């Protein structure tokens, strides 16, 4: 199911290219898939994720929609019920809030409230995250709002390889999936991606680096930052394991507990603000199920509890979690 290097032809793709090629491959495979959103057609999206797709698949399948997020998601729900597999794009995750009622109270509940007689196979893609001078309304991490909601699935890939496998799984899923893409990763992250189709099951975390002294549990752009920090720590004689959650809902409880039990020291990292973030849930799971394996208090490193990320460089930098901040916090944990 998951091809490895050497078994297949590969290309080195950016995170963004991996998403685009997956959309293309899936649309070639399944004529029910349609894409729409703001600027996704002629312009190929403000980040060019959907570049060339309208030309290849036509205006019926790659649609420039009116600028109205509730309508984008709400019509996608209707289209999904009537036989299509819509993959709408919300231009920035920050713009998803006008659609929150359609996502939380409609898409997430339709299977449940109809006693299983209706369901909504729908993938909402949205770029999220900061560090690109996007300010308060082009930088947010919004995953925790949605991870709270039964009926939704929430995934965030950290590598081009995962971007492909998770997107294919999301499109194949029979329930609504939120697929968040870190915009700072779009062009900065590159990696080998097999040409052939493969699926990464939603709900499966991935150990991106083996270690024995501490565990860094994270997701998204922070995975590559944590890996950088781990390399630094290695030089200091600290062996850090990095667990990429990949799926915020459902969480891979088994993988979380396994790494916590293995190292006994856990640092949870996310760019989203601290309070009510994914880290709280991960921490609670470890406390409930692995308390006596711990050798130190669970630590969290996250965005600060300010309303959103400011624009000006010093303020933005102060908000962002960086490889250096992760290294320092991890060192503190290792020395506990």
């Amino acid at each position, binding site marked *: 199911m998951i091809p490895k290097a050497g078994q297949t032809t590969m290309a080195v793709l950016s995170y963004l290219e991996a998403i685009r090629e997956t959309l293309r491959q899936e649309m070639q495979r399944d004529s029910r898939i349609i894409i729409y959103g703001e600027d996704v057609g002629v312009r190929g999206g403000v980040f060019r994720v959907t570049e060339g797709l309208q030309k290849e698949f036509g205006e019926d399948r790659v649609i420039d929609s009116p600028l109205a997020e509730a309508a984008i998601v709400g019509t996608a729900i209707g289209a999904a019920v*009537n036989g299509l597999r819509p993959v709408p794009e919300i231009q920035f995750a920050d713009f998803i809030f006008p659609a929150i009622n359609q996502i939380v109270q409609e898409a997430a509940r339709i299977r449940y409230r*109809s006693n299983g007689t209706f369901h909504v196979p729908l993938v909402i893609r949205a770029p999220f995250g900061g560090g690109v001078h996007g300010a308060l309304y082009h930088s947010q991490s919004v995953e925790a709002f949605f991870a709270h909601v039964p009926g939704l699935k929430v995934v965030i890939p950290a590598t081009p390889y995962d971007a492909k496998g998770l997107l294919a799984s999301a499109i194949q899923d029979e*329930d609504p999936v939120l697929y968040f893409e870190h915009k700072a990763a779009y062009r900065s992250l590159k990696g080998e991606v097999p040409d052939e189709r493969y699926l990464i099951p939603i709900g499966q975390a991935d150990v991106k680096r083996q270690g024995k002294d501490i565990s860094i549990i994270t997701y998204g752009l922070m995975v590559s930052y944590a890996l950088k920090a781990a390399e630094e720590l290695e030089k200091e004689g600290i062996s850090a394991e990095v667990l990429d959650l990949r799926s915020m809902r459902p969480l891979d409880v088994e993988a979380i507990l396994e790494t916590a039990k293995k190292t006994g020291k856990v640092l949870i990292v996310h760019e989203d603000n601290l309070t009510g973030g994914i880290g709280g849930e991960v921490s609670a799971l470890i406390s409930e199920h692995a308390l006596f394996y711990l050798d130190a208090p669970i630590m969290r490193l996250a965005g600060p509890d300010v309303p959103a990320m400011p624009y000006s460089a010093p303020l933005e930098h102060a908000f962002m979690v960086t490889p250096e901040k992760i290294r320092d916090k991890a060192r503190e944990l290792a020395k506990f």
Partner: protein
Amino acid sequence: MSDNGLTPEIMLDMYYHMVLARAVDDRMWILNRQGRAPVVYTSNGHEAAQVGSAFALNRGEDWICPYYRDLALVLAYGMTPREIMLHLLGRAEDPNSGGRQMPAHWGHAKLHILTGGSVVATQDVHAAGLALASKVLKDGRVSVAYFGEGSTSQGEFHEALNFAAVHKLPVIFFNENNGYAISVPSRKQMAVQDVAARAAGYGMPGVIVDGNDPVKVYEVVKEAADRARRGEGPTLIEAKTYRFVPHSSDDDDRAYRSREEVAEAKKRDPIAMFEARLKEAGILTDEKVKEIQKEIKDIVNDATDYAEKAALPDPATLGDHVYGSL
């Protein structure tokens, strides 16, 4: 009567469904007042608008997205009185939701009645989306969103009309304007006289129809459906009508409208008017009316008994249908 394809048999069938809806509605209120049903939402007064529109559609194939006022609509669309009562009483067998949703939250996959929530106007964009799929898949279906005039203040009403008009979707927006959003009169809801006037702002036809005349409603919905199927895009229809009883069993309409106003409106009861008209046309007789009433009484009794004896949901099923698979 005009040349609209409505035979005497079809009109009798319309009349039957209007009377059936009123009888089921009346029974639900009785059950509520007896403490046997927690809450009731009515279609009392809206029967002509709802039944007339349903008959103009390809029932069970075209999609409808109803709101809580649409008891007569779903009955005319094929939901049975037993299914209505199972829903009212929250029974396991309720096809709308298996006892999960509060009454009047319709949804029936086999009949193409899309499940709805309680936040008004959310269904308007769903109808546009169903129609978007119909356009792409060329399945020949028309989708209809039903909604009260109060919900036209919501952003999603406007978003849905705009989206549908831009993409020329095969959808009908069917407004049942009874003049009140619970207690708030329409003049406090909008600064225009007619909901239909909104259509011009989106580039689609806006049609006003007497919502107490099922034949006229049938005709305008038929025309809008034909238009949609020809690929000419959406239509906004405003059926002017009146709700004869409170919004719900927890409402008291004496707080916001006079008894004189209600009595005056009841002079145009859609069922009484249609009955008189059918009699005048020689389609209906006093005997036939009695026969229908007797038949309906038996059906409503059967539905009530059936639902009251039906099993409640098993608490062990609380966690079912959150996801198809994990």
